[in-house]
């Protein structure tokens, strides 16, 4: 499938999925409430068959008061890629976990939780990944501050 065909097939499954402009790979944005159903559908669809989650990461858009969650999906069967993105508000960062669809998402979501503080509902074991368990705060948030950090002098 070419990129346009993937985007077309995806928008047939979820009509609220908007294709993103200026992307090297096919990419769509979906609303956060339909993410779990949408992911399950494109995983199970035989023509799309996204059976691997390459990367899951998050971007902190402080000015727009939202976290952007990115899922880079790959189909080993057909050899095509798709980037799915969704947004959650910074003050209530809750999204449903995709770890029941792709098992690797367990650790990737733990990493995003550890550094960004996004909460995944339905995750079997949402603990910190790299930092100590008693760490206070989420250090990759743009407004993170602690006593240890040095500010760059002017």
């Amino acid at each position: 499938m070419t990129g346009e065909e993937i985007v077309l097939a995806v928008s047939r499954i979820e009509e609220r999925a908007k294709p993103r402009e200026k992307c090297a790979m096919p990419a769509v944005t979906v609303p956060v409430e339909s993410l779990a159903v949408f992911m399950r559908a494109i995983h199970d669809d035989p023509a799309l068959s996204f059976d691997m989650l390459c990367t899951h990461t998050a971007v902190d858009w402080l000015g727009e008061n939202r976290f952007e969650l990115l899922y880079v999906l790959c189909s080993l069967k057909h050899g095509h890629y798709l980037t799915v993105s969704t947004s959650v508000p910074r003050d209530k960062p809750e999204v449903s976990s995709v770890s029941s669809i792709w098992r690797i998402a367990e650790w990737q979501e733990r990493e995003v939780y550890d550094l960004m503080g996004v909460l995944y509902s339905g995750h079997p074991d949402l603990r910190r990944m790299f930092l100590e368990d008693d760490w206070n705060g989420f250090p990759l948030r743009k407004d993170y501050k602690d006593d240890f950090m040095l500010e760059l002098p002017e």
Partner: protein
Amino acid sequence: MGLVTNNLPAILDRLPGGGFCVTSIDGIINWSRANSLWPLTFGTSCCAIEVMMAAGASRHDLARFGAEVARPSPRQADLLVVAGTVVKRLAPRLKTLYEQMAEPRYVIATGSCAISGGPFIYNSYSTVRGADQIIPVDVYVPGCPPRPEAFLYGLLTLQKLIKAGESIRRPYIRRKPVLAALPSGMTADQIRAELAVLLQRDSTVDLSGEYAQNMQAGGSKQ
């Protein structure tokens, strides 16, 4: 015993406990310590590629200075080369490794990260600002990362410190940490020539010349 030590002050030396010892052994011990440093493989980032791999490989050949036997266990090592960034989570492990090493133990901090935190000194939530915040460091080798020549220079500096450092005559005396920076304008050919002279001087003993005369003069001074 007193008679013997009075007559042979150059060879024999009193110990704090009242015994005596042949002081040349002391020098030999330091000489052999300096020339058989076994480094602990402790590479946490890019410095490890230059320092532990490139310096140990055949082109630069750390084995010429007796420091090629990199050990994976701190119990068998006496030189801890902190090659790379130390983060908060690693700090207790680094301290444990240092404490597990047997005395005498030496530490070289290579690269900006291990010296001061380097490029991660500002706005970092995790990087420890220098390995010397956790363990005592003997020699600092600057660079980002240091070239293998710079690391060899640092190793030779440490060897000089060991030879001039703690001994039976001067127990518990250790040299202060030094910065082993390569002088500017140095070329690789100059370093090679200097190392050749050093190797010639440090790894050979001339038993017929000045050394023997010193021994005889010291022995017959009284």
